[in-house]
């Protein structure tokens, strides 16, 4: 189990020109059929002006099992070690940490620690909930089902009712 790694292959994105040498996305790739849907999402998130960049040093803990999320993180560079009881795996670029949990108001299931120097973009949980509450009803429904599927829960979280 210790060899499992989950994330986006950023070398592929660089190779096909989806991001430049500095990791900056190139706009013309938005409709590039070479990209999978998750690579499209990752590429678009990289270019979003709404997200704030944060650096974590190697060994720094992002969240401990049982703690609540105030901010979510999207990993752009680097790797984290995810510990679940006695088991662990790794996540890298494209991994989203704590967004569904924060919106649903549930604690972290995992302890997550920077395995390398880590560059993330943060998303405020409170601002996201505020936005969901006033957004289009169709989009709100999709947010609700996405959060519930991600967390494998069957009761609608208070913030998404």
């Amino acid at each position: 189990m210790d060899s499992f790694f989950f994330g986006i292959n950023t070398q592929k994105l660089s190779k096909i020109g989806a991001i430049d040498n500095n990791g900056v996305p190139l706009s013309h790739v938005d409709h590039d059929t070479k990209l999978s849907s998750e690579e499209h999402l990752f590429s678009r998130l990289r270019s979003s002006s709404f997200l704030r960049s944060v650096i974590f040093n190697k060994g720094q803990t992002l969240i401990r099992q049982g703690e609540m999320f105030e901010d979510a993180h999207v990993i752009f560079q680097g790797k984290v070690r995810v510990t679940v009881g006695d088991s662990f795996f790794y996540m890298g670029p494209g991994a989203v940490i704590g967004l569904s949990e924060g919106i649903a108001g549930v604690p972290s299931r995992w302890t997550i620690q920077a395995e390398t120097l880590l560059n993330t973009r943060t998303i405020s949980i409170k601002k996201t909930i505020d936005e969901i509450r006033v957004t289009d009803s169709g989009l709100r429904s999709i947010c609700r089902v996405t959060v519930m599927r991600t967390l494998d829960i069957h009761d609608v979280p208070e913030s998404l009712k």
Partner: protein
Amino acid sequence: MYFPSKTYQVGDVLFTRGDAANTFYMIESGEVDLFVPPANTFLVRLGPGEAFGEQAILTGGIRSATAIAVTELTCVEMTAESLQDMIQSQKTLIRPAFEALLLQLYLQNSIRSALPELNPSSAQA
């Protein structure tokens, strides 16, 4: 943005495992059952206000479950293209937040698939 609704009769199959996932459903009235392979095990019954078929959001996916109407069922249906248009039209934090939610679901599905012992219920509609 306008999304069409469609009505199904009892026993109608909305989609089956292996179908291309190009539609997301929100139930207006009625109920639908989801079954998962290999033995078509009953997964969940969904009713008004609930939604399913989120693989359509992660474009390019295929259905991993079968959906059958158990009553007369009316759903609002969104295609992957209309979902993309709706996302692109958002000009606030909701857009990256929504995209990040989809990315988290995608990764969670990968983790469930590779490490089922961490998430016993791995079925996705």
